């Protein structure tokens, strides 16, 4: 266990040293957040009764999404993993007494965590002080806040286990580019990153809630503002845990096959 923790720590430390990148990312996220809220406001003012979420909940959703972008951003892969597969440094990783899947898993978690740690606090602080219905509201209750934190972490793990599927399949296809692009577009749309899932038509929404993409940002961000509560919330958490376990199991099976089959090319 200790070896995986060391990996985690080293990746976290490495990730924390990119200050300029964090600053640039934060600026983008502020602008993006404002833009999105403006658009949602315009729709809201046109017809408030047609809105599936309150404006406050929508604004909180947008800010939380911006603050924790590094948790759920579909495009955010650990480039080094693709590099090791592409350039053959994988040979060295295979020469270590460690499980490739587990090591890549902790690395990916650490990467996302380090990026989010640097970015989330300034965004959250500013968003809290924005006027009501534009800014980040307070959590619906203590209880909601606790479940927000738990499902946030579960969501992060679901995201990473989805990433892992792309990494381990790259062991077979060598280049991960194609998979990566497909993965990004599917995840962004179906996970409610472009528009929150409650805004989808009812029937589509029922279907989307069952897939793993809805088990990421969608759950914690809606629990926070009370949009998702009671039995609905319990159901969402059960689905989260189900997907987490099945995705990890699937990834491990593919990974084990890839480990055996991988051929390190070149001299």
């Amino acid at each position: 266990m200790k070896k995986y923790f060391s990996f985690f720590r080293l990746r976290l430390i490495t990730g924390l040293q990119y200050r300029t990148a964090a600053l640039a990312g934060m600026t983008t996220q502020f602008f993006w957040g404002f833009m999105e809220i403006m658009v949602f406001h315009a729709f809201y003012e046109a017809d408030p009764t047609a809105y599936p979420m309150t404006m406050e909940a929508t604004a909180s959703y947008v800010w939380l999404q911006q603050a924790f972008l590094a948790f759920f951003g579909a495009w955010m892969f650990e480039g080094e993993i693709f590099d090791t597969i592409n350039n053959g440094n994988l040979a060295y990783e295979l020469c270590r007494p460690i499980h490739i899947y587990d090591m890549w898993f902790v690395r990916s978690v650490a990467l996302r965590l380090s990026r989010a740690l640097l970015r989330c606090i300034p965004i959250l602080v500013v968003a809290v002080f924005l006027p009501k219905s534009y800014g980040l509201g307070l959590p619906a209750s203590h209880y909601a806040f606790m479940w927000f934190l738990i499902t946030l972490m579960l969501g992060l793990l679901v995201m990473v286990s989805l990433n892992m599927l792309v990494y381990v399949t790259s062991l077979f296809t060598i280049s991960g580019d194609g998979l990566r692009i497909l993965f990004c577009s599917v995840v962004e749309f179906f996970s409610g990153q472009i528009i929150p899932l409650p805004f989808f038509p009812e029937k589509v929404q029922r279907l989307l809630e069952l897939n793993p993409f809805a088990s990421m940002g969608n759950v914690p961000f809606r629990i926070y503002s009370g949009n998702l509560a009671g039995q609905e919330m319990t159901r969402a958490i059960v689905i989260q845990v189900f997907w987490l376990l099945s995705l990890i199991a699937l990834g491990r099976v593919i990974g084990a096959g890839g480990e055996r089959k991988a051929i390190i090319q070149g001299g």
Partner: protein
Amino acid sequence: MITMEHVCKTYRIAKRNAGFSEACKALFHREYEEIHALKDVSFTIDDGEMVGYIGPNGAGKSSTIKILSGILTPDSGNVTVDGRLLWNSGSKVPLTKQERCSRIEHVSQIGVVFGQRSQLWWDVPVIDSFELLKDIYSISEPVYRENLVELTELLNLKELLRTPTRQLSLGQRMRCEIAASLLHSPRILFLDEPTIGLDAVSKLAVREFVKNLNKNHGTTVILTTHDMQDIEALASRIILIGKGQILMDGGLEDIRRGGESMDETLAELYRTYEI
């Protein structure tokens, strides 16, 4: 002790001619060519030996090293390293999972240096990579300290440990790479072209170090290289491989001919075997 018996490995390589129409054709139908990287390779290496594994480019040297280090699966044959059975297709009864040694168990006992690749973390000081390896191999604190002090001294790493890997020169990095693969005191060390691209001083330092390592710790060293001076300085035994087959296995004296340089001798050898 290392034994390889009747090991074969074949790669399948997609081939096509140049040009756009050929590329389109390849979308629907691919021609594959089978490359026999290893054809019935057998040899035994005793504990504490220093073996130079030589042959022209594409002869199968790297494939052998990868199979011995447990990261490439051969098509057939038996491979045993220090009593650990890595691969077996000879016996009639297929081995169970327990009988065959797992990759993880095997690699924790060996050290590998691939001269053309890097195992150190690019952005952090070398010492951070070492600390990580310490945890990965579960090296105990006293053993780690002792090895680190010894390696730092012998490879002259003192100034380098605190530098990020990306800022090291190739020679400096190679010294760190070698140290990194010896932190867990492996009994067997595989060196795949360890002196490639190094200047004279670094080459001499690496050779001197490997020689002493073998003498003082009895580490078995298997070395692939194109540099005949490496072989002259280090190897007491030479295995020559060409087109996937072992062509010669013997001492340095067996191939040396009076007056000629080692490179000429080797070129002559390649010509005789038509490889």
